[in-house]
């Protein structure tokens, strides 16, 4: 173990240069979140992830944000265990009818101000699962969404570009 730990100190970090925030995400946020609320963004944010019906592909890539290459926590973004500790809900999947109530309750348990990020093609409009008796639709059909990150699943880089938009504060008035 000692060798592995020492190498961690002597080798260059694997963590990569952060990408620029996604322009489309910045525009969507500017439109969906009012200025006062955006002033509260741009600081350290606690994120609660909710799988509302995903195939688990999005979860794999959200997990990857924590690995040494992307190291999400260096931006002050971190995943928390309870919605009561969260500023941001990341919601994946088409919302299934069986998860609708659980998602609503999670949303209601998150203190204001809060933002919802819908991740993946299914979270946008139900994706390939739209139209099923068991699916409500996209996340926006159940809770208000502030930002969409597209992809099936979005790569960690795309996720990072979208989430970094949350950290950009509007210029002072």
């Amino acid at each position, binding site marked *: *173990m000692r*060798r*592995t*730990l020492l190498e961690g100190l002597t080798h260059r970090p*694997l963590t990569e240069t952060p990408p620029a925030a996604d322009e489309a995400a910045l525009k969507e946020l500017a439109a969906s979140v009012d200025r006062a609320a955006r002033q509260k963004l741009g600081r350290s944010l606690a994120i609660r*992830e*909710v*799988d*509302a*019906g*995903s*195939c*688990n*592909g*999005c*979860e*794999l*890539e*959200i*997990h*990857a944000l*924590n*690995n*040494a*290459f992307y190291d999400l926590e260096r931006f002050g973004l971190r*995943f928390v*265990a*309870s*919605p009561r500790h969260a500023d941001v809900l990341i919601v994946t*999947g*088409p919302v*299934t*009818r*069986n*998860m*609708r*109530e*659980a998602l609503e*309750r*999670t949303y209601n348990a998150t203190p204001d101000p809060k933002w919802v990020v819908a991740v993946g093609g299914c979270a946008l409009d139900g994706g*390939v*699962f739209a*139209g*099923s*008796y*068991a*699916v409500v639709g996209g996340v926006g059909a159940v809770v208000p969404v502030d930002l969409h990150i597209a992809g*099936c*699943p979005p*790569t960690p880089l795309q996720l990072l570009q979208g989430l970094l938009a949350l950290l950009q504060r509007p210029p002072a008035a």
Partner: protein
Amino acid sequence: MPALIDIIPQGERIERHRPWPRFVVTPPGWRDAAAALAAGRATLLALWGDAGLAPMVHMAIADDATGEIAVISLPCPTKTFPSVGALHPPAIRLERAIGSLFGYEPVSAPDARPWLDLGFWDVKHPLGDRTPAPATHPAYAFLQTEGEALHQIPVGPVHAGIIEPGHFRFTASGETVVRLEQRLGYVHKGIESLMTGATLEEAARLAGRTSGDSTVAYAIAFAQAVEAALNVQAPPRALYLRALMAELERLANHFGDIGAICNDASFALMHAHCGILREEVLRAAAACFGHRLMMDRVLPSGVAVDLAAGGADMIRKTLRGIAARFPRLVELYDNTASLQDRTAATGIVGAELARQFGAPGYVGRASGRAFDARKTPGYAPYDRLEFEIPVLTAGDVNARVWVRIREVEQSLNLIEQILARLPDGPIATPLGGNGAPAEGLGLAESFRGDVLAWVRLDGLRVARCHLRDPSWFQWPLLEAAIEGNIVADFPLCNKSFNCSYSGHDL
């Protein structure tokens, strides 16, 4: 053990079913088959309903030793069928799902509660007669527990982590778990209903999104089933490329799991290093096939994309780097006493339970069940590749970690062989078929265990498709494994199983 064909009750053989036979039987024949399962003369592979031609239930059974498979079908015009679960417990949840989805009643079933239907749908029996759902549903009756000082801990569906939703009801005596009862179905998306009438391309996309972590294995199983039904063969190069993707998927998931299990014992160092290895595999996959998880790369007829130029060398370089570093991580795992203290003798699955449930994947192989669909029944190109199936007998978390470690070593070696032998030629073959109804069965080994796909085609459209995730036969064993362990060891046990919620819930 008698040949499978000898224990199958006499029935009418359906000619259009490939590659294994399907027989239509009468209720006594169905009961005989259930008795053969209960006696351990065969393993239950799947049990599903079918409303397409007439109300019917099918079960796929296998001989573990020879890999022989057969499908047995029972028409149920009165929408009832003799319960298999009454004799053979692994069938219980499958029958409950048939009851909820189709409305077919397993007669004298030990558990008549709904499964997957949590009372939120507009329709009742969505794959059967689709009647409007009742306005109110009775509360779900969790199993009763009685005893002094017992307390219950409800967990989920929303869990404290980046994981899928499901409900766990623990009954504990102090710190010790007396009973775990699972309630699943939260991510039920109605995939089988969406499959009906879908084109093969649409259906392949759905199959590949049944459980995202096994997208390649699902796509392979679905492609095998369709190709069997249409009696076509994917070209050799496509078969090798499928195996290459499947082994990359296995590596990525096993690295993720090994790290995550250690992380649940608060050993973050392994998690960090395994996360790096996983990321390197996914990046190689993206560079070679254009998608990190390789979704939609395997199609009925072959594969959608060829290996990118320079891909073989890139994979070799990546894997050699991994092969150089992985042994040190294994040594780290093996020599950290505080970690071993958590994983050894925790969450034991006995060999008899593993056999009875036909426990797929590492859950079975850590408990003495030497089954791997790549070997038995086996499929190309694995019949031409050399590899071993690691089998351990301790049945604990530690054994499930070690099976994964050994499988990583096997996969690294397999990929070398695949790249060395990768044949030239086309990557897809045209799908024809004469338009007549045709049926096929596929079985592919995902990192988690065998994925079964069954299709009935109407021309080049899906008339009915059933997908059976390995988790169906692993989730119940998790209930058994946690009994007598402390609540705090549940995450560790759960992660060592890493069952799919989405794959199970469909």
